[in-house]
């Protein structure tokens, strides 16, 4: 019963929470640049407007592919907040990202094509850290099951600090924040127009935007999973850690210029190898010593 409440809460509340987070993000970004900034509800105004505009679709398949992207991302979140296998959640998330790639590349626009190729490179950059995080959770708790991981005796971050650092690092890529917003970004970049979203207008862009909100809430959930344990107070701590992480992402976004893809690939793999990899070795050694 509890599981159904969580799933329904995710489906209904995730877009609201995601939109509010983005609104606060834009407000804080504006304040960091000494501007007044848009109202906090601005992302919702944008999406409502996008739904009311005339639909110009380059190819008929694009809307279908984008809706599939949205549905798969919702399924990812449902599986995660429903408490099933975390490995499966990330596999479904990767499938969703592939549909976004197809939705963009099907338009055969040069800008969208470059953007989607960069999206694939971004996937290559963050995938190792994501998979290692799953392995880390398994080594720390002996299970891939999200609801059992959340019931562990002490917070998993105690065993997995390196995995946490690697995951926060690749979160910058996943949330399309500078310096790793190579495929598209929320700011104007004339060099590839809007990258992967170039050929998405009106309601297609609105669907993309809503999917981003679902995705962000899911990723924040994974950050929270590092903190949550059997003690109910840990949920409040997890929310605080999630908010601090989000603020850190905004700070990184506003203080760094975008990098080339080679550097992004090198940096993310290095950080994954050195923080998550070393953590993994230590964890395995300690466990062997214990047994």
């Amino acid at each position, binding site marked *: 019963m509890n599981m159904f409440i969580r799933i329904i809460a995710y489906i209904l509340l995730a877009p609201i929470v995601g939109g509010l987070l983005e609104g606060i993000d834009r407000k804080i970004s*504006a304040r960091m640049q000494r501007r*007044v900034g848009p109202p906090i509800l601005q992302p919702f*105004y*944008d999406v409502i*407007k996008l739904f*009311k505009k005339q639909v110009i679709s380059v190819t008929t398949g694009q809307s279908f592919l984008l809706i599939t992207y949205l549905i798969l991302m919702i399924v990812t979140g449902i599986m995660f907040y429903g408490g099933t296998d975390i490995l499966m959640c990330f596999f479904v998330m990767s499938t969703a990202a592939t549909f976004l790639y197809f939705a963009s590349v099907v338009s055969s626009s040069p800008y969208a094509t470059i953007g989607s190729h960069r999206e694939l490179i971004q996937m290559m950059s963050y995938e190792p850290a994501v998979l290692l995080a799953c392995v880390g959770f398994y080594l720390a708790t002996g299970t891939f099951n999200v609801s059992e991981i959340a019931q562990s005796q002490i917070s998993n971050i105690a065993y997995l600090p390196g995995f946490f650092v690697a995951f926060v690092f690749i979160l910058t890529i996943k949330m399309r924040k500078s310096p790793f917003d190579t495929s598209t970004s929320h700011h104007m*970049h004339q060099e590839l127009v809007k990258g992967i979203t170039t050929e998405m*207008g009106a309601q297609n862009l609105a669907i993309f935007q809503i999917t981003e909100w679902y995705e962000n809430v899911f990723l924040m959930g994974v950050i929270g999973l590092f903190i949550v344990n059997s003690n109910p107070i840990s949920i409040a701590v997890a929310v605080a850690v999630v908010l601090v992480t989000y603020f850190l992402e905004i700070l990184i976004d506003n203080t760094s210029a975008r990098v080339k893809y080679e550097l992004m690939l090198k940096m993310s793999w290095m950080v994954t190898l050195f923080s998550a990899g070393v953590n993994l070795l230590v964890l395995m050694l300690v466990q062997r010593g214990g047994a």
Partner: protein
Amino acid sequence: MANIKRSPWLLHYDGSSCNGCDIEVLACLTPVYDAERFGVMNTGDPMQADILLITGGINTQNQEVVKQLYDQMPRPKVVCAVGVCACTGGVFKDCYNILGGADTVIPVDIYVPGCAARPQAIIDGIVQAVELFQKRSEEHDALVKNKGKEAS
């Protein structure tokens, strides 16, 4: 009736401007004027734009480009000509290659004169364009509704 004027996204196109007006357009987005507090976003993508901001006159080479940009924008849309060159052709009016203001190729709704147009004038122009955008959107909604009725 949803209030869509809170989210006007701009597409800025530089015709054959001397860059004076372009710099003033970008000045509107700086912390001093901060047009983003009205929800204004400067997007480079015509498919996502609501208001087309043109600076500079139309010449024989860019007339097709301007037409295409206008056609790629989804309805409802508003066109705003910034600076005297985009309004009438300005000092370049009699040049052999200049056809005139932006209204020689596409319908222009708002004219912002000045050489270069001041940021205050540009923001005033955008505010007027936004009002018109809301009106057009309501007309567009009514059109879509009537079409739906005819179909059913």
